């Protein structure tokens, strides 16, 4: 059954369909042909084909039998490795039915695991390495502890290029009979920054409104998907309206379910692009760094962000 959600509908099903990432695909393909897969670590930004490649590996190795031999888990949702370990245990206990002597466990977003959880994961990898292969995926391999990295073959995925992105746009255009003009194509690339999941979602949203996609329609949808709340919060603070900045901050965090870190990242991004005096900009960025550090250290998000806003009012 094909999905009506485009990220799934257009998810490549064979090595050949993967756009870009050529060297990686070549290396993996030969490993799969030899049926000798090491543990793998896929590192790289979102929406560039990490999950896709992992599923293709399973399909190629196990054919129609791939589902029972492939376990997909997401480290960021299940938190604590405890749950993961249980699932892994149950999955790895039974032997693979196929001719292949191992099963595959795909653990996505590993960089959200704490160090303790990573240590536990490393032990689990050792424990089951005879019957399973792990494919780990993360955005930044630097967030993983060395013992894990040293057990894996590391593949570094790159953001897709303009040509790559144009290729997928063309494909969708033909398949869905929609029109996308030149300007819109440019915006799609700029906004997605090579993240195809973002791009396909944006396209599908826009096409649910019109099938003649121009810059204007895209921008409308983008501005809807990128609420201006954070900008407004900064502006209120810069205008010395602390009370309202504070109120808006709380509402934004609550209504959109954003964490303190989400907010500070966005604030920092916006400040970089703002037209303010250089010294002020530098000072604000420095302050962001300090507050972000405090958040990472476990301080109260709302209190620390308030102190950031208060510093903007000066």
């Amino acid at each position, binding site marked *: 059954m094909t999905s009506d959600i485009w990220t799934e509908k257009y998810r490549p099903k064979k090595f050949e369909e993967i756009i870009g990432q050529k060297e990686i695909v070549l290396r993996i393909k030969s490993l799969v042909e030899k049926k000798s897969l090491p543990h793998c670590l896929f590192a790289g930004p979102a929406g560039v084909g990490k999950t896709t490649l992992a599923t293709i590996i399973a399909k190629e190795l196990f054919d129609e039998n791939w589902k029972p031999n492939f376990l997909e888990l*997401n480290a960021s949702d299940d938190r604590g490795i405890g749950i993961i370990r249980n699932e892994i245990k149950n999955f790895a206990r039974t032997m693979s039915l196929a001719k292949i002597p191992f099963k595959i466990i795909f653990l996505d977003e590993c960089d959200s695991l704490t160090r303790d959880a990573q240590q536990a994961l490393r032990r689990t990898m050792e424990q089951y390495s005879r019957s399973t292969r792990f494919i780990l995926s993360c955005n930044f391999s630097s967030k993983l502890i060395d013992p894990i990295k040293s057990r894996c073959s590391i593949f570094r995925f790159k953001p897709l290029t303009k040509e790559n992105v144009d290729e997928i746009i063309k494909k969708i255009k033909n398949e869905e009979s929609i029109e996308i003009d030149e300007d819109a194509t440019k915006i799609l690339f700029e906004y997605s920054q090579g993240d195809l*999941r973002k791009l396909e979602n944006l396209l599908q949203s826009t096409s649910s409104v019109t099938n003649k996609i121009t810059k204007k329609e895209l921008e409308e949808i983008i501005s809807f998907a990128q609420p201006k709340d954070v900008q407004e919060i900064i502006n209120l603070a810069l205008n010395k309206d*602390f009370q309202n900045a504070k109120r808006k901050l709380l509402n934004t965090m*609550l209504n959109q379910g954003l964490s303190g870190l989400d907010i500070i990242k966005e604030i920092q991004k916006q400040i970089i692009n703002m037209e303010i005096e250089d010294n002020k900009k530098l000072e604000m960025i420095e302050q962001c760094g300090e507050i972000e550090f*405090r958040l990472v250290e476990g*301080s109260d998000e709302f209190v620390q962000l*308030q*102190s950031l806003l*208060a510093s903007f*009012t000066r």
Partner: protein
Amino acid sequence: MWTDKYIPELKEIPHQREIDLIIQYLKEKIPVLLYGPTGVGKTTSIIKIAKDHNYELLEINASDKRNKSEIETLIGNATQQLSLFGGKKLILLDEIDGLSGTQDKGGIAALTKIISKTKAHIVMTCNEIENDKIKSLKKKCKIIEFKPNTTQEISLILKEIAKKENITFKDSEISSLARRSNGDIRGAIIDLQVNSTLENNLDLTDLSNRENKGEIINALTLIFKSKDFNTTSQSLTNIDLDPNECFLWIEYNLPKEYTKTEDIYQGIKKLSKADIFKSRIIRRQYFRFLIYQSILMTAGVALAKKEKYSLKPSYKKTSRLLKIWMANQRNHKKKLIAEKISIHTHCSINHAIKTYPHYKKFLVKKSIIKQLDLSDDEIEYLNK
């Protein structure tokens, strides 16, 4: 209850200037809106005015249901009967900021419309004047503030009552009761009654354990109003309230008291440092850090201001925790949808929540609703 036994006479109420104004406006049939915190004497004043000036009082308060038609009927009746029998009616709509959005649908709007059309004797009361709900209503009436009663005013009233009840008391005890009432006469009278012993002595020894709210408000007053290290750093020592809860009180009320941006900045800076120590305590289990946390959040905040502020806002409990709870309720549906997106598109639930606006537009397509097996509730949420 002494609060019922000792309802003051009109001329005994501390707000004489306000009362004169009300009487004046009523004569001219101009609607009046009184605002001020609970227990300062708004309702009492109106009841007494009605009595002394021969109005028949028609009162509806927060416990009654007040939707559009009810308000129309009430005011309509009052004005009609006026013409039939010639007697004067005074309509009191108490605590109108308690008119809830859904239950009393259209209540405020109807009220606004009626008072601008009808000539009647109408008085309304509310706690918060800066409430969006009554924005347009405000323009249609005269607004009179009932300030919290001063400590002296309350002391006087308390002493009167104590004398009538033959209670022996020290002046300092009475003023202590008055001070901690934070301007609420009713609260002060209740305290007086409960703390009078069978032998008719005033005994305040275990007062502190019963009423946290007064205590924390006193502590806040100390912190915000003074600039003295020793008194302010001690202000939370004998309070029967978790330090972290005190922190929330200070954090919430700071920008209400300090209005100069530099003072806010310096104050919040100290609070954020206090918060850092709090997280260090948790992480290192090193409890001596508590000293730094508590000095920073008290004396630190007190000394953050350049000059003292003369205005005294009424300190309130933070609504942040309540808001967090409500948002969680709301976000729960979003999370359910995100879970389904996550299952069907190989991304994490967290990711789906964060990028939810990307999906919102197209998930409502019939085939996708079916594929994700979205419930009616979830579809409704998507369509919002």
